[in-house]
């Protein structure tokens, strides 16, 4: 048979529904995690820049710890470590928790850069009109910061989507694990793994295009 290795087209067609289901799970985990990560990251990002040494220290420690350790280790700490501390989570919850904590740290840095990209005069103008710091942040600075960081957030989503394959080690039936399970019963590696790669690409490629598009739009807006 012509093709790569043991690629089996019949098998490929048969496993498509399973892979699609796995991709859906991957998308679900990534979306939940990025949403919680966004909340966590926005708070942490603000804590990084407010003039309060305690908040600065906590947020910096969190960001440094997450960025300086492998995601795989973080996932295992949440899944195997927490139960020893008396906190037993189902794998799905542990997975989302680990991914959220992880993306929260990266998003915090994106948010911090985004806030700092908004000219100081915007905050001053808002305050001079009688807005409180919180109102000025909420209605003036953050909307502009989010507009500026949309591409960076998109890239973070893509990165997280790929990294979520590590959840396979804690038995979550996401795309990568689906592929591995098919391999385990068929003893054919090429077919399911190429399928897995293909599904990842089908998710990441349109997203990258979207990010490029957003980047161009914002670029045009800024220069005007």
């Amino acid at each position, binding site marked *: 048979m012509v093709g790569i290795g043991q690629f089996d087209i019949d098998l490929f067609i048969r496993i498509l529904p399973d892979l699609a289901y796995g991709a859906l799970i991957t998308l679900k985990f990534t979306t939940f995690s990025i949403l919680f990560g966004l909340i966590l990251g926005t708070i942490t990002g603000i804590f990084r820049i407010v003039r309060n040494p305690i908040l600065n220290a906590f947020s910096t420690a969190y960001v440094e710890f997450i960025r300086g350790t492998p995601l795989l280790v973080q996932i295992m700490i949440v899944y195997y470590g927490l139960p020893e501390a008396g906190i037993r989570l189902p794998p799905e919850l542990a997975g989302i928790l680990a991914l959220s904590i992880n993306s929260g740290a990266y998003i915090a840095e994106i948010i911090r850069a985004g806030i700092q990209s908004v000219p100081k005069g915007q905050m001053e103008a*808002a305050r001079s009109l*009688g807005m409180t710091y919180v109102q000025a942040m909420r209605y003036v600075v953050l909307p502009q910061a989010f507009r500026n960081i949309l591409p960076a957030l998109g890239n973070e989503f893509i990165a997280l989507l790929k990294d979520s394959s590590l959840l396979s080690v804690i038995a979550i039936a996401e795309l990568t694990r689906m592929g591995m399970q098919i391999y385990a019963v068929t003893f054919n590696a090429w077919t399911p793994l190429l399928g897995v790669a293909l599904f990842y690409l089908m998710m990441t490629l349109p997203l990258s295009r979207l990010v490029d598009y957003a980047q161009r739009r914002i670029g045009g*807006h800024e220069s005007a």
Partner: protein
Amino acid sequence: MSLLEIIDLHKKFGKLHVLKGINMNVEKGEVVVIIGPSGSGKSTLLRCINRLEEPTQGKIILDGIDITDPKININKIRQRIGIVFQQFNLFSHLTALENITLPLRVVKKIPKDEAEKIALKFLRKVGLEDKADHYPHQLSGGQQQRVAIARALAMNPEVMLFDEVTSALDPELVKEVLDVMKQLARDGMTMIVVTHEMGFAREVGDRVIFMDNGKIVEEGTPEEIFTNPKHERTRKFLSMIL
């Protein structure tokens, strides 16, 4: 009693002593023009008046209330003191109309449609009613600055501060902004204007203050300051810019 009273105001940035004991009164309806060389502390003075900078020492009394009192609600005070900046500082993600309605809704809790009516009224006042739906980047510098003035006015302040509001504008756009300010003065607004526009100072100013090196060197009517300055430093400064 003066509307605004500044008593022995000092401001230090670390070791840098920028304001060294400013005393001045502004009466209701008065237009006070502040001139002086770069770095003399003019912007710092205006920024202290609405507490964008924290004064190091001294009192600022607005209509009988000491606004340097740490217990005061500064957000309430700032509603009574409008400021317009050299760099416009319009909110870039909002239209001209939204720039004006946002503080009305958020700070004054005015409902949307009423806020829009007020915003349109002030856009009309600065001649930009037809630009209500434009974003800042779709407006010229002069138009942006007029929206910024309308935004400050819509809060219904008792005093307006202007910090070199025409300095960032192309020469042909200066007049439209000055015209708005002249009309405002004629309407009786109390104004403190930092500017290099001596024509404006002469025509509209009730009083001119010359600042140098963190101090008020000399003050008087435009006539007195421009034609017969008493101090050597004032004379030198004027000869440089006139």
